[in-house]
Structures are given as C-alpha cells and as structure tokens.
C-alpha cells in the first residue's frame, strides 16, 4: 500500500513520471478488478489526460498541489461530467451526468488522477457492498469476505493497492465501516464541511463525502483538498485546513468512553478496544466515563429518517428524463411503476417503501416526528458529552469483515451500523483507524468521534495512535502497485 506522501515524493523527485505511475495503477486495476470488483468503471482516458497534464506541469517546474498526479478512486455516486455515474444501480447503469460534482471538479483542478469509479452498495444503501447491481467489492485481505459498505469499492481499491486513496460518502457509516473492514483510515467529516453538490443523494441531511486512505496523514491531506465552501450547496460551510495543525501529543486529552458502545462485543474486538484505551491512558490522556443511553434509539432514528429522505430523493427516477426506462408499458403510471420495479434492487425498494410508509398520513407522528424529536435529543446529548470530554472512542463496527453472501437478514445487517449512525444523526466528524486484528487476521477499527468541526483534534488523536503503535495495525494485502 502506498501513501500519498510517498507517491508524491517519487513524482517530485522525477523518479517516475505521472504517466508511468498512472499506467501502473491502470494495469493493476484491470488485473485485480476481476477479483476485487473495486471499480464499476476504470477511467483510463480521464486518468491519462490528467497524468499528461501533471507531467507537463512538472516539466514546467510548477509547484504541484498535494493531490496532483496521485491516482485515486471516486465513489460511483459522485457525478462526473461525461463519465458514467451509476450508483451501482441498474437504474443508472448508463447514466452520464451533464455536470461535475463540486468535489470532483475541485480535485480535477488540483491535478488528481481518477483511475475509476468505486463500486458501492446500490444508491449507498447497504453495509456490505453486496447490494451493488454489479456484484459487491471483495475484501483484499480475504476475497471470501466483503469489503464493507457502502463505499466498499473505494476501500477495496485502496487496500488492494489499485488506488492510493479513495473518495467515499458516509450516510450511516459508509466510509468508516469499509475502512474498518479493510484496515484503512476513513474520515467522515462534519456535516457541511464538504459540499454535497453532485453527490447523488441517499439521505440529504446525513450524507457527507470524505476520504478513505492508508494513513492518517493522507486523510488530512485529502480532507484539506475537498473541504471548501460551495455556494451551490446551502448546507456547506467549508472547514479550516487541518494538515498543518496535526500533532501526536495526547497529554491531557479527555477521551470519552461510553460503555453502551462496548456491549456485546466479540472478545477480539473488545480486547483491541482495551488496548487502544490503554494506549491513550499511557500516553497521558484522561479516560472519562460517559453515559450514552440514547444509543439504543440511534438505529431506529437513523433508519426512519434516512429512509424517509431516500424515498423522497429517489422519487425522480421515473424513466422519463434519464436512467433506465421499462421497454413495455400500458400508460404513464405503468411506465413509472415498471421502470422503478426493474431499475431498483431489493434493498433500495425496501428503503423507499419504508420511507414512504413513515411519512404517510396516519403514521407520520408515530415514526417521522418521533424520530425527528429523538434526533434533536441525540444532538443535545452529544453537545453535553463534549463539555465533559474532547472526543469519544468507540469500536467502528461490532464485527470484522463479514463473509460474502452471509445472508444476514436486513435487520441483522442494519445492526452492524450501531456504532456509526449516531455520528451522522448529529452531523459530527468521526474517523476510523485500524487498531487490531481478529483471530483470522482481519482488521479491527476504532472510531474517534469529535464535536463539530474538530477534525484536527480527532485526526491528531488518530495520528498519535498510529505513530505511537509504530504502524503495527497496518496490513498490506500484497496486491496492486508497490512502489
């Protein structure tokens, strides 16, 4: 696995051209994608165009932005003009956006080299990547295991060495959970730090774009490159750059521990958490016990509100303007009905129906309004928590990477999101950092949750752990490009 800084160094020292680097990644992507299904599309042409531009800038002796020339994977729900953006759905199998997402156009300007679009759960709805219309991305550490979801393709590509970093999106854990499954760093920024303009919406008040990287420093670099305020997204506020502000001194840092997050953990994950807490304590941080009884409400609140928004956001796919259209139909209603039945997979249909139900007259108060009220309570509770501690340490996922086709029921699958959804409910930043392995050698991740716009603080704590443990929890899959 290669980091951004290491790759950049090779480019700047002119040890290898960006074109050569890009060809290595494109070739590796082609070679590995059969196993990994990390990419829904490999974008050779775009990658070569960007690489040539970077080489020209290098030749002119220009100063390059931090991400210039670095091959990466962009989740396939982020709009790329003239390049297919499928959301891993039959509905958008051939959809080509007419405009660029804000994040993508910013990266392009900085000379980023997109190798392809990252596989994902269909419309980002899932925790295994297995709801992808194209088949789920595999875990590079064990191909019989899932890469996680929904940004499984990005995690698989980065852990599989076929992208240096990935851009994912996180609605209920979709960056952190696959990062945890694949032994990577995944940052879900504060809601509003990164523009959602061009991100194909799943649940608008939860969605946030963020990086999946091999190390904490890279997460900071990518975050800085994408966290600009966008006038075209009213909820975007931008954020202060974090790169120059990271440190690994945790003395006096108040690390909150809420026992609710640690209940019913498998022994290997529990002991990894113990070790992590012990590390912080020994490094001079203060462990603060926190009560978070609201945790039991987080899953229902998340699934009610996210599905409600999803049912609204996905109403536009009717086959009239873009996307899949049923071939035979009787009338307009029938056309729309058939198009949606054919175009959406089972999980997407389930969430649309669930969301429509909770917003329907007669059920609205019992579900939607109650969940909204609880959302406010949860936000307030977090505000209180962050007066007592500087960040919360929790497991990222209460399990390690699941077997492909494990056949969990929807509810069992939803339950694996227990540690991550509260962060999206409250719009907070959180980072998942590798902190151990299970008996099968699969990565375990811990999550550091901070108050709004404290990315620098949680990343610093993550960096302290990463450097303090000497990279003991990084694991190379042995795949892809090795520089």
């Amino acid at each position, binding site marked *: 696995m290669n980091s951004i800084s290491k790759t950049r160094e090779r480019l700047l020292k002119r040890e290898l051209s960006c074109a050569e680097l890009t060809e290595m990644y494109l070739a590796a992507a082609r070679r590995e994608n059969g196993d990994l299904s990390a990419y829904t599309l490999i974008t050779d042409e775009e990658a070569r165009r960007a690489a040539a531009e970077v080489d020209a800038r290098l030749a002119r002796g220009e100063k390059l932005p931090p991400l210039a020339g670095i091959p990466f994977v962009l989740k396939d*729900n*982020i*709009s790329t003009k003239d390049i297919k*953006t499928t*959301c891993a759905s039959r509905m*958008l199998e051939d*959809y080509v*956006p*007419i*405009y660029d*997402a804000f994040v993508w156009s910013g990266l392009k300007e900085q000379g980023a080299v997109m190798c392809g679009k990252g596989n994902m759960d269909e419309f980002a709805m899932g925790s295994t990547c297995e709801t992808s219309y194209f088949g789920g991305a595999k875990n590079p550490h064990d191909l019989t295991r899932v890469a996680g979801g929904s940004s499984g393709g990005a995690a698989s590509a980065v852990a599989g060495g076929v992208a240096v970093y990935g851009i994912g999106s996180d609605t209920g854990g979709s960056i952190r959970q696959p990062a945890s499954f694949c032994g990577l760093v995944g940052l879900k920024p504060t809601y509003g730090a990164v523009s*959602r*303009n*061009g*991100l*194909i*919406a799943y649940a*608008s*008040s939860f969605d946030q774009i963020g990086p999946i990287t091999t190390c904490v420093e890279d997460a900071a670099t990518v975050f800085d490159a994408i966290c600009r305020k966008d*006038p*075209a*997204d*009213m*909820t975007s506020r931008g954020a202060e750059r974090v790169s120059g502000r990271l440190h690994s001194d945790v003395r006096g840092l108040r690390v909150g521990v809420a026992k609710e997050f640690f209940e019913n953990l498998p022994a290997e994950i529990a002991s990894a958490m113990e070790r992590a807490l012990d590390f912080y304590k020994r490094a001079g941080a203060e462990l603060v016990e926190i009560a978070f009884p609201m945790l039991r409400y987080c899953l229902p609140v998340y699934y009610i509100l996210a599905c*409600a*928004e999803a*049912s*609204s956001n996905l*109403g*536009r796919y*009717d086959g*009239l*303007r*873009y996307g899949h259209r049923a071939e035979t139909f009787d009338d*307009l209603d029938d056309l*729309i009905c058939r198009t949606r039945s054919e175009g959406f997979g089972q999980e997407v249909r389930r969430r649309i129906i669930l969301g*429509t139900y909770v*917003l*329907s*007259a007669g059920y*609205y108060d019992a579900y*939607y309004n109650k969940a909204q009220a609880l959302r406010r309570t949860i936000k307030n509770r977090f505000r209180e928590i962050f007066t007592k501690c500087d960040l919360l340490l929790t497991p990222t996922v209460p399990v390690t990477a699941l077997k492909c086709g494990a056949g969990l029921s929807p509810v069992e699958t939803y339950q694996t999101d227990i540690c991550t959804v509260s962060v999206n409910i409250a719009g907070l930043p959180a980072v998942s950092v590798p902190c151990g392995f299970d008996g099968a050698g699969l990565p375990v991740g811990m999550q550091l949750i901070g108050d709004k716009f404290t990315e620098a603080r949680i990343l610093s704590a993550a960096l302290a752990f990463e450097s303090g443990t000497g990279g003991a929890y990084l694991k190379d899959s042995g795949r892809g490009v090795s520089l």
Partner: protein
Amino acid sequence: MVIGLETHVELATKTKIFCSCSTEFGGEPNTHCCPVCTGQPGSLPVMNERVVEYAVTAGLATNCQVNRVSKMDRKHYVYPDLPKAYQISQYDVPICEHGYIELDSGKKVRITRIHMEEDAGKLVHLGEEILIDYNRGGVPLIEIVTEPDIRSGEEAVEYLEKLQGIMRTAGVSDCRMQEGSLRCDVNLSLRRAGTEELGTRTEVKNLNSFTAVLTAINYEAQRQRDILEKGGHVVQETLHFDSDTGTTVNMRGKENADDYRYFPEPDIINIVLRQDALERLKARLPEMPAQKCRRYVGELGVAEADAKLLSKYKAVSDYFERAAAMTESPRTAAAFMVTQMFSRITTEAERESWDPPVTSEMLGELLKLLDGGKVSRNVAKRVFDEMLDTGKPCTAFLSKEDLEGLDEAALTSMCRDAIAQNEKSVSDYKAGKEKAIKAILGSVMRASRGRANAIEAERILKELLNG
C-alpha cells in the same frame, strides 16, 4: 355561498427560485434549464434571496405578519412536469400569515397565509406524443390563501382585482392572467342563510381570467344548490373549469385523498429574516392603491369614485399625480381624467398600460389656465377633448379671445341679448321660478361658445332682471 381563494402569483424575479436560469416567459422549450431545475441527480437548490424579499413585500402589502424564521418543505406527488417528484414549497411555517385585503364595502377578506414555492414544468401535447417543457419549472411563486370570507362571485373578482393591484404596485409580480402569472383556485361550499356550519366544499382549479372565476363560481354554486335542494350530498372533489362550456368537471379519477408526505427540505437551511432587512423592506414598500385612494380623497379632495379609478393602476396614478401637482385643484384634474380620458380609454388592459396621446404635463398646462381664470371650465373641457383627439397641446386650440375671456361689457351685452331671446323664461323668473334663470344662462353660454364665466354671467343676469 362561502368562498375561499388560493391564488398563485408568479414573482417578477429575473432568475428562478433555486437556480440562476432565466424566468422569462416564452423561449424555445427547455432552453431556460439547468441540472437544478430539471432535477438531475445530485443537484441542490439554492434559495434565491430576491424571492424571499418579494414574498415578504407581498405579505407587508397585504397586512400580514412576517415570520422571521421560516423553512422550505418538500411536497410529494408524481407527475411528469415535476422532475424531482416533489415540489419545494412551505408547509407549516409559511413566510407570511394573518393578513387581509379590504374591499370597497369596507369588508376585510382575511389572508390565512402566503407561502413560497416553485412552479412545475409544462406538458405539451403533440398529437399522440406528450412532450415536457421545463422552462417554467422552478419559476418562483407565492400562494396566497384566504379564509372562507368571500360570499359571491363579484366579491371574489373584486378581491382578485385588489390583489392584482397590490402585487403590481408592490412590484412583486406583473400578475398577467393570460400568461399564467396569476392563477386562482376557488374553494366553494353552500350553507343555509343564518347558519354557521360550513358545508362540503369543492375546489375548482387553475382559473386564469376574472370572467372564468365569476362563471365558475356561479356555475358551481348552482350545481351544488341543485344537489342540496334534491336532498343530495355534495362530494368533496377537485374540479376543472371548462371555459368553452362554462361548466366544471371532475379533474382526478381517483377520490382518495392526496398524501403529500411533507417534510422539511434538508437541502435548504432555515430562512432567517433579520430585523434590519425587514425594516428595509417595510421602508421600501410603495403606497398601496387603497392607501392612495384614501389620500386622494382625504388630502387632495378628489371625489371618491374618481379616486378609486385613479388609484387602481400605477401608471394612471402616476399620471394623475404629475398633473395634479401642476394645478391648485387636484379634484379638477381627477374629474377631467375620469370624465374625458376614461370614456376613451375603456378596457382594463388599456388603462393599465395607460398610454394616452396627451401627457400629464399637457393636461397640467391646461389646468393652470383654468386655475388662473384664463379659460372657463367649459372651454377647458372642449379644448381637452380636442387635445385628446389630436395629441396637441392646449395652446393649439385657444384663440386670443379664448385666453382673454370676455370683458364685463361684452358679457353684459350677451346677457341682454339672451334676456331678449328668452321671453318665456324671463316671465317665469319674474313670476318667482328662480330656476328659470338657468335656461337664460344656458343661452349665454352657448352664445359665448363656453367662454363666458358662468358665475359672472349669472350675477349680471340677476342684476339685469331684478334691476
């Protein structure tokens, strides 16, 4: 008859409510479009601040309370002209509430709420095919909802005319019904005179002319009356008005109630109106027709009927005020305009655009002569008619004689002639019928071709007859 109106008014912003596409009427289909107003995946709405300002101005102009914090909501329904399958509108916290519009009778039609929303696209039927034009999609609208305070079709039309005048004066909309920038839905029910309980109502959608509103109300009231008198029940339904037949017909096949599944629009942050911004909008609010009318009567002494006509359209009131400023008698300026101009400029459309051949300055010059006693009222009237015929200034029609008027000797001589020619009236007058003098005076006026000062002439006549 109990009526409530829901009126959609298209705001006069240059750009759409959530994107920077043009709102211009017409244009090749789908040329005023972008990812936002065609609902492309991933696109996000950005609130046009002018829309908020216009909506607040509309509320202030109709005596509403303005909600300093309001929000947008999603209203869901499936129709091809609605590209996101939801309309961004306002549900439980509209921008303005609790206003009213006062009718001439002094009755106040209460306004429940004014909210902002986006317009949908337009379906174009082309033979078998149906095409969609999204140019209109995302054009900003306000919906103005009244309480069920209206009791007749005439009141409904008067309310709409007043509303139209207010919106135009406030500059928030041109309210052109033929272009769809003012559209009206009528909610109507009947109840027995003297009872309070509301009957079952029906809703007639999308009426786009005052005539249609009046016809639809009268038709629908009669239809409901027929049902009720036969002992039947009115079905709550949504109706379409067929302007060809003048009847209402059921619009939707299914009778199940719509469920719009409103929820707060997560892509748009709360709309917060700062106190100073509100104050600025208040200060900028122009005088409304009703206020203007009161001022014309109260301060300028204009006859009430004239004031109503003159305050209705901005172009007319501007014209009047310019002319009135040049004369000592605004009342006369008003009377001249109403009697001589309004009899020529008869349609509402013409009055609204108000493009008379005579400028307000030309009228003012004429009125100045009248003020100074240089011409008599009758001469002024005649000259004004000639000015309106030709577009020439008053000096073109006034002789030296006209301007100088008649001296005492000439007038006395004319009076003597008139007395000699009106024996019958003279004897009637002398017999005590004082009114008979008017006939003799008329004769003087005719002989002088209106140049004579009637008051002066009457004084001289009396002196001659009594002396």
